[in-house]
C-alpha cells in the first residue's frame, strides 16, 4: 500500500488569500493512498523543507505531492531535498495551485475546488510513479570546429587556450574565410589582413589546435560529450608533411585558372596556394584544371619539386574521431546578383561589380595591388555609384532580410574611393542607413563629410551609354527622378548561407530557417546553442552579421563549449522515452518526428510461431533523447512511453479529474 504525503503551500498569501488551503489539506487527507496531509506557510524555505523531511521519517512516506507554485520554479529544489530522504527524487508530483489557480482566480470557493481537483490529479499520478535514476555519460574533452573563417578561428583559439584539444575543419585549402579577402574593416579602418592573419598563424601553430584544411564533415553520430564525426579529407595531391611551401611548383605551372579568391578578377595556377598568407602555407592541386590529372600530360610540378611531394595518385581519405562538442561556423556567401538583377546588366557590364570584388580591387594584395581600376579597361573611375540592398530587403527577387553589414561597408567603400581617387565623386543609393554599432553612425557622418552623396532610393536600371554606366533612380526626398553617369558601379549584395552549410548542419542534427540560416536554441537567451545538445553555432552561419558581432559570438560559443568540456561526466535526465519493443510495429513514425534524431530503427531477433525471425523496432538513444515526448504522442501502437509522464500516469490524472 502506497504511503503518500501531501503538502499544501500557503506561499505566504499568494495562494492562501484565494485558496482555502486548510480545506484542500482536509480533502487531500481523504484521497486514496494518502497517509499524511498538511499545510505549510513557505514550503520552499529551509524550515518548510525540514518539516517535510520530518513528516517523511515520522509517517514512513514513500511518495510526495506538493501543491504549490509551478514546477518550473521549485521542482528541482524539492527533488534535491528528497535526495536527503528515503524517497526517490522522481517519486514527487507538483500540483500547480499558484500560477494555474490562485493567481488567475478571484472566486475563493471555486478556486478552492479547483485546487482540490489539481491535488487529486497529482495524487492519482504519484501513485503510478516509479523510482527513476539519473545516469552519467563521460565527456570526451575535445572540440570540433567546422569552418575556418574568423568565427571558427576565434572559437578554436578560445577553446585551445583553455587547454582543450580542438580540431578545426575547413573545406578550402586555407583557413581565413571571407575576412582575409577584405581590405579594411569599418569603422576603425584597420587593415583586415593585418588583424586576421596573425590569428590564422596563431591557430595554425597552436599546440592544441589541429588544422584540417581541404576537409569536410561527412557524418556525425553519437550525442553530447560523445560525437563520432567522420571527416572527409579531399585529395590535395601534395604531401603536406614534406612540402616546405617553396612555391617553385606554383611558379612553373603552365595552367592558368580563374582566381575565385580574387572574385574572378585575376588568374592563378592549377597548383596553388589560396593566397600568399595562406595557413597552411602549402599548395594543393586543383584537380578540375590540372592537365596531368585530366589528361595525363604535363607533370611539371612533380618533376621540379625538390622534395618529391607531388602525388598524382592521392585519394580522398575518411577519418573518424570522437568529440565532446561541435561548433558550427560555416559562414556565408554572397548571392549571385547577376541572375536576380537583369536590370543591372545581369553581369554583362564588366564595370558593375560586387562589394567583395571591390574589396579585392582596393586590397594591397589584390589583383591591382590596391589601385582602384575598373575591371573593364583598367582605368581609374572618377564617378562611382554604390547601390545598397542589392538582393537584401527584396523578397520578390532575392532575400527578404537585411544583410546588416552592407550599410557600413558601403560607407567604407565610399570613403576609400574618395580617399584614394583625387577629385572622385561617389553617389550612394540607399533605402535606409542602418548604423547600430559603436562608432558606426559617426563613421557614416564622416563619409558624408568626405563628400559622398547619399541618394534615398533604389536604382531602377543600369545601362551603358557612351562609355558610361547610366544609373537611374529617384531621390525620394525631393520626389524627382535622378540619373548618374558612372564610370563604375559597386553593388552591395546580400549575404546568404554558405553553399552546403545547411547540409553540413543537418549532419550534426541542426536545423535551418527558411533562408538556410542555422537555428539557435533561443533567439535571445540561448543564442549560440542549438536544439541538439553539445552542438553550438557562431558567426554568419546563424545569420548575417559583421566582424565584431561574429567574433563576440564565437567567444560566446567557446565559453559554452568550455562549460561542457570542464565536466568529466554529464548527468542525464532519466525522464526519457523507452520503447516496449514487443509492441513496436516498426512503422518508423517516431523516428521522423524526433527533433533531436534520438530514435533509430534497429533489427532485433524475435520468435514468431516458433520460428526465429528478425523484426524492425524503434530504439532510443538515451544520450540524445531530450524527453520532449513527441514520439510518445506519435506512436500508433502506444509502445513508446516517456518516463515520468507515462501514458498510464496521464490517464490516471484525467480519470481523477472526473471521479467524484
Amino acid at each position, binding site marked *: 500500500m502506497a504511503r503518500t504525503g501531501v503538502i499544501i503551500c500557503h506561499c505566504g498569501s499568494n495562494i492562501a488569500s484565494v485558496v482555502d488551503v486548510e480545506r484542500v489539506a482536509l480533502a487531500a487527507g481523504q484521497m486514496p493512498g494518502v497517509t499524511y496531509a498538511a499545510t505549510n506557510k513557505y514550503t520552499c524555505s529551509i524550515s518548510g523543507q525540514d518539516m517535510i523531511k520530518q513528516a517523511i521519517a515520522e509517517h514512513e512516506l514513500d511518495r510526495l505531492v506538493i501543491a504549490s507554485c509551478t514546477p518550473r520554479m521549485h521542482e528541482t529544489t524539492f527533488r534535491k531535498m528528497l535526495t536527503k530522504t528515503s524517497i526517490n527524487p522522481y517519486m514527487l508530483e507538483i500540483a500547480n495551485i499558484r500560477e494555474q489557480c490562485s493567481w488567475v482566480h478571484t472566486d475563493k470557493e471555486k478556486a478552492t475546488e479547483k485546487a482540490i481537483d489539481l491535488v487529486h490529479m497529482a495524487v492519482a499520478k504519484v501513485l503510478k510513479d516509479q523510482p527513476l535514476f539519473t545516469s552519467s555519460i563521460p565527456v570526451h574533452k575535445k572540440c570540433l570546429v567546422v569552418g575556418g573563417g574568423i568565427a571558427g578561428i576565434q572559437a578554436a583559439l578560445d577553446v585551445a587556450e583553455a587547454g582543450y584539444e580542438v580540431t578545426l575543419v575547413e573545406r578550402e585549402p586555407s583557413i581565413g574565410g571571407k575576412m582575409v579577402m577584405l581590405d579594411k574593416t569599418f569603422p576603425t579602418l584597420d587593415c583586415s589582413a593585418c588583424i586576421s592573419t596573425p590569428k590564422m598563424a596563431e591557430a595554425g601553430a597552436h599546440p592544441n589546435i589541429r588544422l584540417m584544411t581541404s576537409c569536410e564533415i561527412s557524418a556525425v553520430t553519437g550525442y553530447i560529450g560523445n560525437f563520432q564525426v567522420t571527416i572527409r579529407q579531399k585529395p590535395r595531391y601534395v604531401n603536406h608533411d614534406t612540402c616546405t611551401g617553396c612555391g617553385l611548383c606554383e611558379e612553373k605551372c603552365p595552367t592558368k585558372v580563374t582566381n575565385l579568391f580574387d572574385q574572378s578578377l585575376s588568374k592563378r595556377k592549377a597548383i596553388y596556394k589560396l593566397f600568399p598568407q595562406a595557413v597552411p602555407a602549402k599548395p594543393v592541386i586543383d584537380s578540375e584544371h590540372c592537365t596531368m590529372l585530366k589528361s595525363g600530360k604535363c607533370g611539371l610540378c612533380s618533376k621540379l619539386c625538390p622534395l618529391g611531394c607531388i602525388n598524382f595518385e592521392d585519394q580522398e581519405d575518411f577519418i573518424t574521431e570522437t568529440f565532446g562538442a561541435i561548433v558550427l561556423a560555416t559562414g556565408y556567401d554572397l548571392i549571385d546578383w547577376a541572375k536576380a538583377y537583369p536590370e543591372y546588366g545581369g553581369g554583362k557590364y564588366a564595370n558593375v561589380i560586387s562589394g567583395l570584388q571591390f574589396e579585392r580591387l582596393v586590397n594591397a594584395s589584390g589583383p591591382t595591388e590596391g589601385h582602384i581600376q575598373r575591371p573593364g579597361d583598367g582605368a581609374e573611375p572618377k564617378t562611382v555609384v554604390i547601390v545598397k540592398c542589392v538582393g537584401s530587403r527584396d523578397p520578390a527577387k532575392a532575400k527578404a532580410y537585411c544583410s546588416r553589414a552592407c550599410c557600413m561597408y558601403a560607407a567604407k567603400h565610399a570613403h576609400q574611393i574618395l580617399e584614394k581617387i583625387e577629385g572622385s565623386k561617389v553617389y550612394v543609393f540607399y533605402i535606409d542607413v542602418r548604423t547600430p554599432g559603436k562608432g558606426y553612425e559617426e563613421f557614416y557622418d564622416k563619409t558624408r563629410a568626405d563628400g559622398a552623396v547619399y541618394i534615398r532610393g533604389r536604382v531602377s536600371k543600369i545601362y551603358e551609354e557612351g562609355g558610361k554606366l547610366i544609373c*537611374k533612380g529617384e531621390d525620394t526626398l*525631393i520626389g524627382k527622378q*535622378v540619373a548618374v553617369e558612372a564610370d563604375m558601379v559597386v553593388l552591395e549584395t546580400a549575404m546568404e548561407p554558405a553553399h552546403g552549410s545547411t547540409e553540413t548542419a543537418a549532419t550534426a542534427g541542426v536545423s535551418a530557417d527558411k533562408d538556410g540560416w542555422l537555428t539557435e536554441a533561443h533567439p535571445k537567451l540561448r543564442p549560440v546553442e542549438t536544439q541538439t545538445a553539445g552542438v553550438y553555432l557562431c558567426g554568419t552561419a546563424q545569420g548575417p552579421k559583421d566582424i565584431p558581432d561574429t567574433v563576440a559570438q564565437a567567444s560566446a560559443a567557446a565559453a559554452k563549449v568550455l562549460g561542457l568540456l570542464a565536466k568529466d561526466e554529464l548527468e542525464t535526465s532519466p525522464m526519457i522515452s523507452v520503447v516496449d519493443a514487443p509492441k513496436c510495429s516498426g512503422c518508423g513514425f517516431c523516428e521522423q518526428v524526433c527533433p533531436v534524431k534520438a530514435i533509430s530503427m534497429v533489427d532485433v531477433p524475435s520468435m514468431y510461431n516458433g520460428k526465429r525471425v528478425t523484426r524492425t523496432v524503434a530504439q532510443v538513444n538515451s544520450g540524445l533523447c531530450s524527453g520532449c515526448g513527441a514520439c510518445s504522442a506519435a506512436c500508433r501502437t502506444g509502445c513508446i512511453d516517456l518516463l515520468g509522464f507515462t501514458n498510464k500516469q496521464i490517464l490516471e490524472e484525467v480519470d481523477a479529474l472526473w471521479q467524484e
Partner: protein
Amino acid sequence: MAEKNLSSLSAANAVRIEALADSIGAKLHECYQCGKCTAGCPMAGSMDLMPRQVIRHLQLGLLDEALHSRAPWICATCYTCSARCPHDVPISELMEAVRQQAERAGIRPIRRSHLFTKYFLLPLKWFGKNHELTLTMFYNLASGRVLQHFSYLPAMLKGSKLKIFPARVKNREAVRRLMENCEREAERI
C-alpha cells in the same frame, strides 16, 4: 518633371553652393533629412518646397531649383528650425543666403517679396527702429497696390498695433551708421 542628371552638373554650380553654405558656416552634408525643420515650420503650409527639401536640393547640387523656390521668401525667419535641428544646421540663415543669392541673380519667385525686404530696412535707417506704417506706405506705393490691406487700418490703429508716429530711439545716429556699414559691406560682396 524631367529627370535630374546629377553627374552632369557643372563644377561652377558646386562652387556656388559651397560658397553659399560657407558664407553662413553651414555644413550641408550634416543634414540627414529627418524633417524636423519642416515639421515645426509655421510657414510650411504655404511653401512649394519644404525647408528640408530646399537643403536636399542644395545637397544634390540642384542650385537652380532652390533659387527658384518660393519657400525661402515665405520663410518668416522665426528660427524654430535652427533651434530644433539635431545637427545644428543653420536653416534660417540658409534661407536668407538663398534669398540673397536669388536676388543677386535676379530670380524673383514671388513677384514683390524683394520690395518688402527693401522697404523693411528704410524706416529702420531713418528712425532707428521699425515703423510699420512707413513700411506699409512705401511697400504699397512701390508695389502699385496702394490700398492693399487698407481696411485693416482703423482696427489696428485702435488696438495700438500700428502707431501713427515712429517710436523715439535714443541714439538713432548709431543705428544709421550701423546700417550704412552693412550696406557698404553688402556692396563689397
